[in-house]
């Protein structure tokens, strides 16, 4: 049986897995953005906390994804088997690109513009929210886009800890030594990633200020 036939015959199962996958990704991305962007704003003026935050986020991303899922299982409250553990891991992964791009965007604003703002009598807070943040928005969106693509890929591994999603087919296919079943998970995941990249890329260009 080839992959297309499998996907057609298991259509509703593939759709349900895609839906699960999307839910995992959307929830994780929402949490990562809500944490990452304000964290980026908070560290701009504080070199020491900036170094710590970026280092921690970088280290988290170097942990192999399967290992990270494994480490989380025995932890109380956030750990265990299932969706919520997967979301914790995905959030940790998505954090770095969002945090880093927020920080880079906020600090790459033309110094002449910042000095004009300061010279006009804007407070530090007003400069951050009315000048730096809007000018950094396309950078921040680029970080969210990178994080979304990564999260869609890594979320396939969430099936290993019982969180469902498109990874279910991939793991089943590996066990069955069936390319058709692997592809039934891999192809929709790839399409999701491309779609996310395209749509968020458009949003990013729209936010860009020349």
């Amino acid at each position, binding site marked *: 049986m080839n992959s297309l036939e499998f996907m057609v015959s298991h259509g509703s199962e593939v759709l349900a897995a895609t839906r699960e996958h999307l839910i995992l990704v959307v929830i994780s991305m929402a949490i990562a953005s809500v944490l990452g962007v304000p964290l980026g704003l908070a560290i701009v003026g504080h070199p020491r906390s900036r170094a710590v935050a970026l280092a921690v986020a970088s280290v988290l991303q170097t942990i192999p994804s399967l290992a990270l899922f494994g480490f989380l299982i025995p932890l109380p409250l956030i750990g265990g088997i299932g969706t919520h553990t997967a979301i914790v891991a995905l959030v940790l992964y998505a954090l770095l690109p969002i945090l880093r791009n927020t920080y880079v965007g906020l600090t790459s604003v033309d110094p*002449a513009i910042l000095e004009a*703002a*300061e010279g*006009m*009598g*804007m407070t530090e807070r*007003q400069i951050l929210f*009315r000048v730096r943040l809007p000018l950094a928005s396309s950078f921040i969106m680029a970080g969210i886009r990178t994080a979304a693509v990564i999260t869609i890929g890594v979320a396939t591994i969430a099936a290993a800890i019982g969180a469902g999603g498109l990874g279910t087919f991939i793991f089943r296919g590996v066990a069955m030594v069936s390319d058709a079943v692997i592809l039934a998970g891999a192809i929709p995941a790839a399409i999701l990633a491309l779609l996310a990249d395209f749509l968020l890329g458009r949003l990013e260009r729209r936010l860009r200020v020349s």
Partner: protein
Amino acid sequence: MSHPIIEFRQVEYQISSISPQPILSGISLEIHRGETIALLGRSGSGKTTLLKLINGLRRVSSGAVLVEERDIRHWDIIRLRRGIGYVIQETGLFPHLTVRENVCLIPELEKWPAERISSRYAEVLQSVGLSPALYSQRFPRELSGGQRQRVGVARALAADPEILLMDEPFGALDPVTRAELQREFLTLRQNLAKTVVFVTHDVREALLLGTRIILLDSGHIIAEGTAQEFVKLDHPVAREFLAAAELSTGALP
């Protein structure tokens, strides 16, 4: 004579205490209401730093700067700056805001009522020769260099400050636009009666626009005077400037 609106008392400025040469030293200067001061000097003479000491973007290492007879260290820095218009070369406009948003930013932060902001916007845009309606929704990138500079001046005037600081305001413009804006500036100055301090490296501009010219060299004030006095100066640096512009005694622009 009335009290100076801006006063420098034995000001010294250096970036760090270990640097061998201060950026500015021994600066004492009184600027009176209604004057237009041209700070003239080469690149690195300290003229821009001197300007930034007035709105607190730089802080003196020793001595004091007084605005309206009060040491700027005792001013609420935000209040001080909102009472001083600041114009820099064309990069100073906020690229993500429209002309109207740029111009009305400080009145808006000052929580002026909406009608007052609208009428003030129209007033200042007209005063710099732009149509308020035509430009309100445009972004800085959609404007020419001259238009951007006009908007920059309108923004600095919006909250009706007593003092206007201009850092090479016409520096990035082509010669024709530049001459046009200089002429308009003279008219504007007469109508507004503000105290203006501007930085330039162009001696013609200094002579044309300044009611008093302050010549800076290596962080010191080396000469000062009106245009008539300036062209008669014997100081070698002043002669260099005049020679570069091919101006000699009696040949005022």
